[in-house]
């Protein structure tokens, strides 16, 4: 297979991993708590910003990583206690509006603190080069790191969900929320743990995204909508579905945006081809979602009975 295609596939894999980090938390929160949280993207943004600032100030990317994770987890917990707790019993409209309000709050807050200009983030020392993984294909080692981290997280989640007590509660909660409550489990503690885990993963994704695409206000929402597509395709409440859907969406989106503009340039002018190419490749994922829904309205691996 040509180096170009291999490179795009790897990029797609890496993008898919990032989507998975976001989608895993989101799908668990949907599935277990029944809450739709639009502010999930804000946690992504908070993680990215905290990491960028601390990395810049200290010169150490790894400190930034820790700061990003801590900031995202802390923000997540505050959001859960102050806002989300009051929304569990409410209907979806209330949840959408309340968390939409949170988005406005966070976006404007970050703007007030740091302005609208994107923050540049340096690649971490030791990962700023490339590794030749195939003859003629040098691939950025940072992206390989993301893939590695993502796969580790996936394995970790698998172990957590399939082989621990908390994981059992998570699985039970995703399929039978009321039953878990009836078992006398402290549901609030479970919710906080699940939400915190989701926030941590979102923050991790934000930290990792920084060196690749800079950190700026509104970065959360673009990727959040794609994350929604992943969750819809994968099936609500299913981490396995989130992984599958994320990889599918990531690879599709990347391959399309890698090759479609090139194809279009053969039939139309340069800048027009680029613009339309970008648009069509963005649309491609939604067409994919539509096709999946036609066949399986509840996604590929729905958790609920």
């Amino acid at each position, binding site marked *: 297979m040509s180096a170009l295609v291999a490179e795009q596939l790897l990029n797609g894999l890496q993008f898919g991993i990032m989507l998975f980090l976001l989608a895993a938390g989101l799908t668990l929160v949907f599935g277990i708590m029944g809450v739709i949280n639009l502010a999930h993207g804000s946690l992504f943004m908070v993680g990215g910003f905290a990491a960028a600032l601390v990395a810049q100030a200290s010169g150490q990317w790894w400190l930034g990583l820790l700061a990003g994770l801590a900031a995202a987890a802390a923000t997540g917990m505050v959001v859960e206690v102050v806002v989300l707790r009051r929304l569990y019993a409410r209907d979806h*409209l209330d949840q959408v509006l309340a968390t939409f309000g949170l988005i406005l709050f966070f976006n404007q807050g970050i703007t007030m603190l740091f302005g609208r200009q994107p923050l540049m983030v340096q690649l971490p020392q030791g990962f700023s080069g490339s590794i030749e993984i195939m003859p003629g294909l040098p691939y950025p080692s940072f992206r390989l790191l993301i893939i590695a981290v993502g796969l580790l997280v996936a394995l970790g989640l698998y172990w957590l969900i399939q082989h621990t007590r908390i994981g059992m509660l998570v699985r039970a909660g995703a399929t039978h929320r009321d039953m878990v409550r009836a078992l006398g489990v402290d549901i609030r503690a479970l919710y906080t743990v699940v939400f915190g885990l989701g926030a941590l993963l979102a923050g991790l994704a934000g930290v990792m995204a920084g060196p690749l695409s800079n950190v700026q206000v509104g970065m959360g929402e673009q990727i959040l909508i794609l994350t929604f597509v992943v969750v819809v395709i994968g099936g609500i409440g299913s981490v396995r579905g989130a992984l599958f859907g994320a990889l599918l969406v990531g690879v599709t989106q990347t391959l399309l945006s890698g090759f479609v503009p090139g194809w279009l340039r053969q039939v139309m002018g340069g800048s027009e081809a680029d613009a339309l190419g970008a648009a069509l490749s963005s649309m491609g994922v939604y067409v994919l979602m539509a096709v999946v829904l036609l066949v399986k309205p509840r996604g590929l691996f729905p958790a609920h009975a």
Partner: protein
Amino acid sequence: MRNALPPLAVLLAAAIALPWAAEALGQPATIGLATRILCLGIAAASLNLILGHGGMVSFGHALYYGLGAYTVGILWEHFRLGEPIFGVIPGSNELLVTLPIAMVVAGVAAAVIGALSLRTSGVQFIMITLAFAQMGFFLFVGLKAYGGDDGMLVRRRNIVPGLDLRDQNQLYWLCLGFLVAWLLLQWRIVESRFGRVLEGIRQNERRMAAIGIATYRYKLVAFIIAGMGCGLAGALTANYLRFVSPDLMAWQKSGEIMVMVILGGVGTLLGPVVGAAALVGMEYVLGGITENWQFFLGPILLAVVLWAPGGIMGLLGRGARRG
């Protein structure tokens, strides 16, 4: 409704008199602001039909707003250039042509998207409607021929026999007329048999199936009607702004329209218009104080959701009765 007639009549009279009052007070800019409120009011009212009465939380409603606006814009562009669309469909600058086409375009889009999306419900439905609207956004960002990301000017407003829409007062009255007509239509729909089914679906879809109602087709019809109303709002907006851009169908716009519905009072007739006025008013007043006024809108929205779920109409004692 009977005993609401006198206050409504007063309200309508005041709305009609607004341009003269504004000019007399030396505040002609208010008329433009009010026109914006009227257009957004139609959009919010149409969302209220499916959201407030049907219980369908569509987070992609701005797509139809944008489609309506772009229909006007594209028809104008082809009229200006003298080239038919796809070589077949001639452009137009006549409101009596562009408005119906805008509504049809929006309606067809709503039919297709609704047919797919309404196979799901709950959280999935919200996400799917959002995703489809995003798809539309990306499509228009990619259409450089119609401005792409930067948007497209619609230099002249459409022409209508008997009116000159270059006069902002006349455009205002036209929009007011459409708002009143749409609210009247919506009021009748809500009270009709169809509306009762819709309300039933909102309250308990399982019960509706159990009395023999095939709920999908009713939801789809409501979705299409709402899409057409929003398309109408978009087409009027394109005339007002004389500019169209993909932002008109971005997720933020969908959110704004939803905020208007909740701020004003979900499920009430005038709530969406009141909400539109409130949001536009807040933007104008708070935006004059600080660029970051949305920082305050967030908590305000939260507060309304948590503590005043009936919105402004609820606070005025005219909210919809909800269990």
